[in-house]
Each structure stands twice: as structure tokens, then as C-alpha cells.
């Protein structure tokens, strides 16, 4: 009974607090004639005019494609390399200095190089996004594989489980909670790098739109772009949480039963 009340209360707070914040913003900015902070109503009107659905095809879709492609490439590479490094201590030692060095480079610093070598097109942005997403997933995969319980591995050995099953049906699922943690980090980094790469060199995309609006003093447009990016990040994270809940149901169940 009280647990149920607690849940409804929580849900209520989750809905009302953002609405209150928006309301406060609307009230405080109503009739504002400050150039940089236009009234919220104006921003929202611009938002509707701009993004529903006028610029979806020209800016939102290219942005999402870059991000999705970069992320997907990183995901596949990171899990493949991560499994390899996790399974072989020698490969791990050999790769450690390079991995540590590459991931220490702030990715925006690679932009000039990428533009020089790959050009200003989509490939450059996909490359930068993939580069940034690779490390958190890779390192988490390696850690996850190393951390697979010895008894689980001994069990597989006793029953003569072959390499393919051992990798795909033992190591990968066992490491998946950690891999997912890496994916969550990677997705937020992907959004950041998408915006940055579009601001530096692009002719379309949400990042390009925000910077372009600012440069042409279209302040409500600029705000509407920022709002959209925030919503996008929120939706992406929400989607990931839902996928994680489904895929890692066993993990939460096993943990709960171990504690209980």
C-alpha cells in the first residue's frame, strides 16, 4: 500500500516538477524584451515552426544519421576488440599503452586532423563520433570480460563448451551489464561530438543550425535548437534505459535474489 503510494508520488513529482520549471520560465520571461532571453512562448512558437516538421528532413535526419552510424561502428568495433583484449592477457598488455594514449586525447583536438585528412563531409563527423564512442564501450567490455566469475568459466571448461559458445553465450552476456554502462556513456558523448563537429564544419544538422541562428541573430531559433538537443538527449537516454531493462532483466533479478 505505502510502496504503491510512494510510486505514484514519485511519478507525480517526475511529471509536475519539470512542468513547474517550464511554468516558472514562462512567467519570468513573459513580456521580456531582453534580446538574449526571449519569452518562452516565442521560443516555443519558433520551435513548432522550425522543427514540426520543417527542418526535420534537412537538419534532424542528417544529425541522427551521423550519430547513429558513428555509434554503430564504435559499438561493433569496441565489442569485438574488447572481447579479444579481455580474453588474452598478452594482447591486453600489448594494447594497453596505445589504448590509454588514444583515449586520453580530447576528441575535439582531432577535428582539425580529421577535416584535413577526411574532409568536411559526413565521413569526418562519423569518424569523430565513432572515435569518441569507442573508448567507454571498449574499456567496459574488457573489464566485463576479465571480471567473469571463475566458477562460471570453470563450469564451461568442465562441460567442454566450445570457443564460439564460450564467447557469445558466456563471456558476452556475462559482461553485458558493464558493456551497457559503457554504451550509456558513449551515447551522451556521441551527442556532444555530433554537435561540435557540426558547429565546426557543416552545411546542415542541428549543431550547424544552432550556431548559424546565433550568428544571424535569430535568438529564438537558437534557443529552439538547444531545446531540441536537450529533448533528444533525454529521449535517447530514456530509450536506452528501456532496452537495458529488457535485455538485463536477468541481471537485476539475479542481483536482487543474491541480496535478498
Amino acid at each position, binding site marked *: 500500500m505505502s510502496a504503491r503510494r510512494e510510486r505514484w508520488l514519485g511519478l507525480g513529482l517526475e511529471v509536475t516538477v519539470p512542468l513547474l520549471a517550464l511554468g516558472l520560465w514562462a512567467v519570468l520571461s513573459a513580456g521580456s524584451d531582453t534580446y538574449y532571453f526571449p519569452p518562452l512562448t516565442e521560443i516555443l512558437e519558433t520551435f513548432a515552426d522550425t522543427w514540426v516538421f520543417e527542418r526535420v528532413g534537412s537538419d534532424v535526419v542528417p544529425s541522427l544519421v551521423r550519430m547513429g552510424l558513428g555509434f554503430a561502428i564504435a559499438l561493433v568495433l569496441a565489442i569485438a576488440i574488447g572481447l579479444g583484449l579481455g580474453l588474452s592477457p598478452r594482447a591486453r598488455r600489448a594494447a594497453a599503452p596505445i589504448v590509454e594514449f588514444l583515449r586520453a586525447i580530447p576528441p575535439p583536438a582531432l577535428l582539425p586532423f580529421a577535416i584535413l585528412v577526411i574532409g568536411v563531409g559526413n565521413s569526418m563527423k562519423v569518424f569523430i563520433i565513432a572515435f569518441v564512442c569507442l573508448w567507454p564501450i571498449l574499456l567496459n567490455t574488457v573489464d566485463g570480460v576479465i571480471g567473469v*566469475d571463475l*566458477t*562460471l568459466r*570453470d*563450469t564451461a*571448461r*568442465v*562441460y*567442454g*563448451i*566450445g570457443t564460439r*559458445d564460450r564467447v557469445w*553465450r*558466456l563471456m558476452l*552476456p*556475462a559482461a*553485458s551489464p558493464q558493456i551497457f554502462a559503457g554504451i550509456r556513456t558513449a551515447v551522451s558523448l556521441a551527442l556532444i561530438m555530433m554537435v561540435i563537429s557540426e558547429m565546426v564544419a557543416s552545411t546542415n544538422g542541428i549543431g550547424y543550425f544552432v550556431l548559424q541562428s546565433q550568428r544571424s541573430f535569430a535568438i529564438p531559433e537558437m534557443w529552439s535548437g538547444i531545446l531540441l538537443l536537450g529533448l533528444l538527449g533525454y529521449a535517447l537516454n530514456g530509450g536506452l534505459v528501456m532496452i537495458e531493462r529488457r535485455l538485463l532483466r*536477468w*541481471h537485476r*533479478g*539475479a542481483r*536482487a*535474489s*543474491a541480496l535478498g
Partner: protein
Amino acid sequence: MLKVEHLSKTYGEGDDAVEAIRDLDFEVSEKEFVCIVGPSGCGKTTLLKCISGLLPPSGGEVRLHGQRIEGPPEQMALVFQEYSRSLYPWMTVRQNVAFPVRRKHSAEDTRRLVESAVRSVGLTGSLDRYPWELSGGMQQRVAIARALAYQPEILLMDEPFASVDAQTRADLEDLILEVREEYGVTVVFVTHDIDESVYLGDRIVVLTPAPTTVQEVLDVDLPQPRDQVATKELPAFARYRAHVYRSIKRKQPEAVPVETESARA
């Protein structure tokens, strides 16, 4: 069928070396139920890992049908004490039991083997549940079913019932005696529980404290089938129990003389 000869195992090297097993010999014949019992802290788990080929011995060897064991052999299954860490939590009971089997058999045979093994341990109703939805005793039944479906000639068990409550433990003891008959499997059962070793075993191998070696091998001549009440109230059961107990206590180095001195005084 299984022969352990001059087995020794030392962990580490030089000054840090720890001698876990020293020159250990015993034999297990076909269809036999052998209990290995020893004081806690002796190298029981190490011994079982050497027998199963998970650990290479430092000296001596283990032979199965005359063949030297270098890695886990096909004819062996192992049930671990930590059932929650030996079952795969992302697989259902059915998938767990099928995992080692499906590689060797057709889909149809796998299904048949899995279902009959799960029936033997009385978990047919839980086939599509996850291990973590089950109690500890039920999880250990799943681990036993997985071992049985694998159709091993020899089943190794490493203190399999040490982490379940007493009632469940008695049930599982009777279960393992039943499935042993049903599947005609040879069992090597490691335990630190003296009653359990006498109740289950055809023979008991008593180990010394580390560096572990064989203290004595004892034939258990109690009527079959065993019964939790009838067998345990036999005078012979009490005698075996006392015998094994003394045998284990006999070789507690250093501590023994001091204790007997003070006990006499």
C-alpha cells in the same frame, strides 16, 4: 576406472610455496559412490580440480580408464558448491541444462535428455524459469540435472549441499542416491560433513590436514537403499561415524598433544 597416483599440488614457488596435496593415492571403481572427507581447510577442492583436469597437478597423475587426464575429460561432470555462480543467470533452467548437451546431440535428443534429467530432479514445472527465481536447493537440483543430461560416466561433486538448509540437504542426499541408480553413474563426492559421507558412500576416503594425503580408506557396509531415519539409527552407522571422526581428528599436528595434556590435567 579412476586412479589417482602419487598426486601432489604445490601453489606458488620458492619461499612462498604452499604445499596443498602431497603424494595422494586412491582408486574409484565403476558405479561406485566414493566420499572424500577431510578437515576443513585441507585441499579437498584442489584435489577435485586436479581430478577434473581444471588444475594441472605438480606431481603424479590422475588416470581415467588408463588415460592420463590433461584437461576436463568428456566423461566427467562436476557439480560445484556455489550453485548461484555455476548456473548461467541469463539462461532459463531449460537453456542451462541444454547448454552442454546441445553441442553433442540433435535438437530432438537434446530436448529429451534435458526434460528427463529435469524430471529426475523433480523440477519439470520450473523448466522455463530463471535460476534466480528458484530457492537454493532448487538451483542445486538444476545443477545436478545439467550434470545428468550431459550423461557423464563419472560425476564429481564439490561439497554440493554445503550451502543449503538441513531439511533440503537431506532431500538432496536422497535425490543423489536415486539418480545415481537411475543413471548408473560413478560418483566422487567431496564433503566436510562426516554424517553425510557415511550416509552416502560405498567407500570413504579420509584425508589429512594440508599438505593433504590419504589418512585411510574405509568400506561402508550399510544396507541399501539408505534411509534418512532407519540407516542413521543403526548401531553400525554410529560406529562408522565415530570411526571417521577419530580418523580425521587423529592427525591434527601440534595442536593434538597440547590439547590432550590439558584434557588429562
